[in-house]
């Protein structure tokens, strides 16, 4: 039997505010434990939260970029539960009046365009972090992250596959980066996601029992978790068993979801309006102002790259998915790089090197890429040599021509020098020469290859080709 997978996503993104959501502590990542804390974010008695306006603004911005309605009257609510990383014994979140609601985003997955509904986007505070010290046998808490502002983006159950989930997550990341709402650094935990998943026999109307999978730390982990849970649920149903309502914790290393709590243990969060904070009133003027401050979003930018720069759709989509890549690309084009050549480099060697080295930012300025492509254009270095130059630029900014000289990558374009080389190759390969004379182009390639080999890659292949033809009188 065929099964349909029904997926809803909950995405938490840390906002790029300078200070925390209810106090003026820094949100900087990686500080010494408990140094970015104060009586407010550590839940001392007698303090009051004051809402960071910028956090509301970022939430509105995200909502506008994701086609949401923006509430004119929002409020904060308390979500009550006990855990050592939660200093007040409740999290200030939003329950029934989120900042944004009823939006959607277009994604492209499996070659098809699709709309994924956004139920809501609300703001809330992050919790602290537990540090389990096995040596001392104790658990310690770092409250630096407590009170860092988050938005939670909740989707409709519109996602049908791991591929769609991945496409959606990538789109969210791209939009949050473009708008500057979040830096989306997965390894710093600034983007996290929970997955709600159920399956049902194809054609069945009623939804199956869903499970929630938590602790997803990367998009590829989301894909693995979805595949795992889908198979697990189908396995249960096929065996005539029932799927139990539960929360699973994803263990990506072992590729398994473990049950964290069952329905019986489900929390009763006792939500109620946060009485320490005044309601948030959002007027049209404020929304308009934020709307006008929105940067060009990936979809619009993609279209511009196709129409203005003549990039193929695929290239435009690839580059605009990341604001960093797109900004880099545009700067390179501005400095004179031909768009398609710049996009080839960014999509090819540069993206591969970024991935290999686990980097998010290209470690050298666009000027260096443009200088490198200029060298190819002028016949100073070959494309192969340029790949080495780009790789070296990842180790530090250095003049590309200098790199080429030091590594002996400068192409020999001096015709008298190359003529000697060509003569040698012709003399040594009479068979290939005969074939070329007989009109076999493949043999021509062989001769050029030989010349390149003899020159250890430094000869300019275009000139070699011309010289071979000239000497053979073709």
């Amino acid at each position, binding site marked *: 039997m065929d099964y349909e997978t029904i997926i809803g996503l909950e995405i938490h993104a840390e906002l790029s505010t300078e200070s925390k959501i209810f106090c003026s502590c820094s949100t900087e990542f990686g500080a010494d434990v408990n140094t970015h804390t104060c009586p407010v974010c*550590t*839940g001392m008695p007698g*303090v009051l939260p004051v*809402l960071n306006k910028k956090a509301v603004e970022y939430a509105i911005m995200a909502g506008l970029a994701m086609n949401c309605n923006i509430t004119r009257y929002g409020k904060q609510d308390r979500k*009550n539960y006990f855990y050592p990383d939660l200093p007040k014994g409740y999290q200030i979140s939003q329950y029934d009046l989120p900042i944004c609601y009823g939006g959607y985003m277009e994604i492209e997955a499996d070659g098809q365009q699709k709309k994924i509904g956004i139920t809501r986007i609300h703001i809330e505070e992050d919790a602290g972090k537990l540090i389990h010290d096995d040596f001392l046998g104790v658990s310690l808490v770092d409250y630096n992250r407590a009170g860092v502002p988050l938005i939670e983006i909740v989707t409709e159950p519109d996602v049908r596959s791991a591929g769609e989930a991945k496409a959606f997550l990538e789109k969210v990341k791209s939009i949050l980066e473009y708008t500057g709402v979040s830096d989306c650094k997965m390894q710093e935990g600034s983007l996290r996601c929970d997955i709600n998943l159920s399956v049902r026999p194809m054609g069945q109307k009623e939804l199956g029992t869903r499970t929630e999978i938590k602790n997803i730390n990367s998009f590829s982990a989301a894909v693995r978790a979805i595949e795992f849970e889908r198979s697990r649920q189908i396995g249960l149903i096929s065996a005539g068993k029932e799927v139990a309502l539960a929360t699973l914790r994803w263990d990506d290393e072992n590729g398994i979801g473990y049950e964290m709590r069952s329905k019986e243990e489900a929390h009763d969060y006792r939500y*109620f309006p946060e009485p*320490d904070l005044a309601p948030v009133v959002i007027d049209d003027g404020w929304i308009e102002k934020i709307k006008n401050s929105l940067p060009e979003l990936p979809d619009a930018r993609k279209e511009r790259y196709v129409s203005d720069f003549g990039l193929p759709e695929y290239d435009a989509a690839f580059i605009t998915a990341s604001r960093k890549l797109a900004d880099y690309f545009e700067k390179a084009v501005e400095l004179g790089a031909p768009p398609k050549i710049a996009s080839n480099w960014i999509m090819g060697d540069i993206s591969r090197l970024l991935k290999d080295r686990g980097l998010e930012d290209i470690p050298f300025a666009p000027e260096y890429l443009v200088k490198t492509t200029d060298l190819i254009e002028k016949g100073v270095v070959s494309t192969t040599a340029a790949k080495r130059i780009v790789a070296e630029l990842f180790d530090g900014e250095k003049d590309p021509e200098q790199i080429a000289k030091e590594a002996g990558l400068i192409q020999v374009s001096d015709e008298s020098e190359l003529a000697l080389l060509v003569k040698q190759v012709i003399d040594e390969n009479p068979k290939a020469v005969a074939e070329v004379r007989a009109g076999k182009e493949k043999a021509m390639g062989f001769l050029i290859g030989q010349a390149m080999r003899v020159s250890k890659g430094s000869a300019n292949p275009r000139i070699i080709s011309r010289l071979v033809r000239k000497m053979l009188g073709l």
Partner: protein
Amino acid sequence: MAFASSLDQIGPLAKTVEDCALILKHIAGHDEMDSTSANAEIPNYTAALGRGIAGMRIGVPKQYLENGIQPEIKKAVLDAVKVYEDLGAACEECSLPLVEYALYAYYLISSAEASSNLARYDGVKYGFRADNFGDLRDMYLKTRSQGFGEEVKRRIMLGTFALSSGYYDAYYKRSRLVSGLISDEFSARFSKYDALLTPTTPTTAFRFGEKADPISMYMGDVCTVAVNIAGLPAISIPAGFDGAGKPIGIQLIADRFEEEKLLRLAYSYEKVAGFENARPELSDVKGGLQWTTRQS
């Protein structure tokens, strides 16, 4: 720390109305560390005190003088009415039919908020932590069971219950709705009256430990909680003594941001009644007053 954040309001406790006005002038206004404080202009409360009250209209809600009110307290309120009439104010009886629900709404909302406010006393970061415990859950249970007193635990349980799934609508949410209705009812009266005059308490002070039943303890707040529920300013002023020499207070309630009117009314009364410097004859208290010192 707040007991019930949405209901709590700090205010001056002073020997005279003038002192009260002086303190209020300095503690009123917006506090950037408290977003629930109004960003409104602060009147010069002391300058207004002596301006008199001729022409002011005072409503006396009959519900406050009915069931369970100590007759001497009722008399004190009615005597105050005479004082105000003599000073040129117009007084008349009025009605606040919903005010009897204020106490119930107050105890549900305040307990709900207190149950959450007190969650931070979990033994993790500061304060009391039980000595011997097993796992985390056991630490929470023992710490909170041993650390809180009976009345606090009662309110935490009441509040937790009122917020629980399945009960929230019936208790917490309904209390909020009732609060809104009570607030509307007060607002309607303030279109007609500058202030309302009521007792501060239904009875004078009872002895320490005399009331064991929590409900009858809560009933002692029946006259004062409505202003917290409705979000209104009120002032309590000395209005004499009962037969046993125990002090009686009367309460004036005004519309939002009308503290100035309250202080003027209180000041005018104080000047006539002169109770601000009166001291009870403690030796005359029937049966002798039992001073009890709490063991710390």
